[in-house]
């Protein structure tokens, strides 16, 4: 068993760290403070570097990387700006990845290259005001009509909503069939009747233009259904399996940033004539932080590796997301404690890490939903009576 990274994975980490510190670092605080998106030239530069097509094949302009490498890219970006990490992971893993996995050759040819190069930014939207954890209860309707569908409804909390050009939208084509009646549609922002609603004023992830979306009589050609119309819910669940590796990596990035800031500070800050990091109370906190972060990383790489080897990884993906997100939250809380009062003011990024970390326990399935997934797997395995 070899747990070390390959030369190429190490080179990816080194260069993404360089990109994040040379380019993203100056924006991270600004995006958070002003709740504005990344400037277009940075988005373009990320396109040149293949950051919008991390796992997409080289033929359509992506980098064709394995999933461990994918996790490394998301971790390194999120260490500096979790909000940028969010945009990148959602675009890649829950928009481009399902398009490539379930799309027809025509759909891939039509949308793949622009997404993989970042000329178009993508999103994925299931959640509605009345449908959160219970995704099968969505009310957005798509009514078949000749060679097209007519889409009506409202979506909530759409990552990349304010900046995206293309969204995978879950809508019910047959409410009587509940989850079996849900289809995924490829919806373009330019379509008549598509409207971006309010941009959310959030606690964290403020550099992502998370928004509402409204559809009123949007005409969607039949060829824009992703996969079979009755498979939408299954596609969504499979998509979230991929997505959760990304969210876990994002959580790992936030936690790592907080831990490193705290460890550095703890050795510099002196009270009672010694670095506070040499007090056992503080070094034990750091020890816990480091151990949980490493455990998160290993759980993430295990899920990623299973995926790359074509093995089932749904439970492992839920486990790494559950663990990495709660670790991020815990680590940020401890980091803030180590910074004392300085952790509470906005001059330092620690309070931003803390605010950004919380959502990783909520989106792409809450921690409770992760436990439902893991628990169901345990029930399947042990409940034989």
């Amino acid at each position: 068993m070899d747990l070390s990274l390959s030369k190429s994975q190490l080179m990816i980490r080194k260069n993404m760290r360089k990109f994040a510190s040379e380019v993203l670092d100056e924006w991270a605080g600004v995006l958070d403070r002003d709740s504005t998106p990344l400037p277009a030239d940075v988005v373009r530069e990320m396109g040149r570097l293949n950051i919008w097509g991390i796992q997409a094949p080289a033929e359509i302009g992506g980098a064709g990387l394995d999933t461990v490498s994918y996790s490394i890219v998301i971790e390194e970006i999120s260490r500096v700006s979790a909000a940028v990490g969010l945009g990148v992971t959602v675009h890649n893993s829950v928009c481009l990845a399902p398009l490539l996995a379930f799309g027809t050759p025509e759909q891939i040819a039509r949308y793949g290259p622009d997404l993989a190069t970042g000329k178009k930014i993508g999103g994925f939207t299931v959640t509605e005001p009345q449908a959160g954890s219970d995704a099968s209860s969505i009310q957005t309707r798509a009514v078949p009509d000749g060679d097209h569908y007519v889409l009506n409804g409202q979506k909530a909390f759409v990552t990349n909503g304010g900046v995206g050009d293309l969204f995978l939208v879950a809508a019910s084509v047959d409410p009587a069939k509940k989850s079996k009646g849900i289809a995924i549609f490829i919806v373009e922002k330019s379509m008549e009747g598509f409207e971006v609603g309010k941009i959310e004023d959030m606690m964290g992830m403020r550099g992502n233009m998370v928004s509402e979306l409204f559809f009123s009589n949007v005409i969607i050609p039949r060829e824009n259904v992703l996969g079979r119309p009755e498979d939408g819910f299954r596609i969504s669940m499979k998509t979230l399996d991929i997505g959760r590796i990304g969210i876990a990596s994002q959580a790992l990035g936030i936690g790592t940033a907080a831990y490193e800031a705290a460890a550095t500070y703890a050795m510099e800050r002196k009270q009672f004539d010694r670095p506070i990091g040499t007090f056992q109370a503080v070094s034990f906190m750091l020890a816990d932080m480091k151990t949980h972060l490493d455990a998160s990383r290993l759980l993430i790489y295990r899920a990623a590796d299973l995926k790359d080897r074509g093995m089932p990884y749904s439970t492992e993906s839920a486990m790494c997301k559950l663990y990495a997100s709660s670790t991020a939250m815990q680590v940020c809380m401890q980091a803030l404690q180590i910074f004392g009062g300085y952790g509470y003011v906005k001059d330092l990024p620690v309070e931003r890490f803390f605010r950004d970390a919380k959502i990783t326990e909520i989106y792409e399935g809450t921690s409770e939903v992760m436990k439902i997934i893991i628990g169901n797997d345990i029930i399947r395995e042990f409940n034989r009576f």
Partner: protein
Amino acid sequence: MLSIIVCIKQVPDTQKAVFDPKTGAIDRKSTDNIMNPDDLHALEMALSIRDRYGARVTAITMGPPQADDVLSEAYALGADECVLVSDPRFAGSDSLITTRVLSRAILRLGAFDLVITGCEAIDGNTAHVGYQLSEFLSMPLITQIHEFMIDGNHAIIERLYGHEYQKIRVSLPLLLSMGKNSNRVRIPRLVDIKECGEKPISLMTLNDIGGEPGEYGAAGSPTVVIKTEIFSHTRGRAVLEGGIEEKVDAIVHMLKKQNILRF
């Protein structure tokens, strides 16, 4: 099309390295091997000339077989071709013999217009090889380059010269030596990182570059290292008291005392 050769070296990352207090040698396990930082600037210079004028960029390194890692990295950044010059009989070469090996290997690569090296390597810090190479290859050496343009078979170069800029016109071929901060090294695309390990690296050995074994390696090297010592500095902290005049005087006095200010 211009042909550009970039000399790069694999070095231990001395910023992370731990030194053996007895021998003064680097504990190789304590650190990773990286591309020498100045050489990244040399490669960036070559790539930026290629971007503007079109060129074929060949990266060359002399070192043990595992030095091919820096060549893969050169491929990721955009080199067109990479050459590893490696032979057990080169082991122990000092900077003079390294220059002999590199110059002979470069001459085997065919006609070229520019050779670009880093100013110095962070392991030995001799800054010998680039300068010696210009002698061995009988061509001008230009340092401290601020702006570089090609004009026919000449280069027009603006370089830092003391406190001013000097603009010169010089005929090709020539050697450029690049120091830190001379340019901003590009970040490779992810796809190029993924593919760089699969690109072919040509190997040159003693048999390919010619000469007698006695001319190379420790046997051929006139330099003798007598002793390596570890120096360490610690930062001091001084709090100056008094009015602004007194404080300035105190700072000037301190700087003079340490021979930093000399007038």
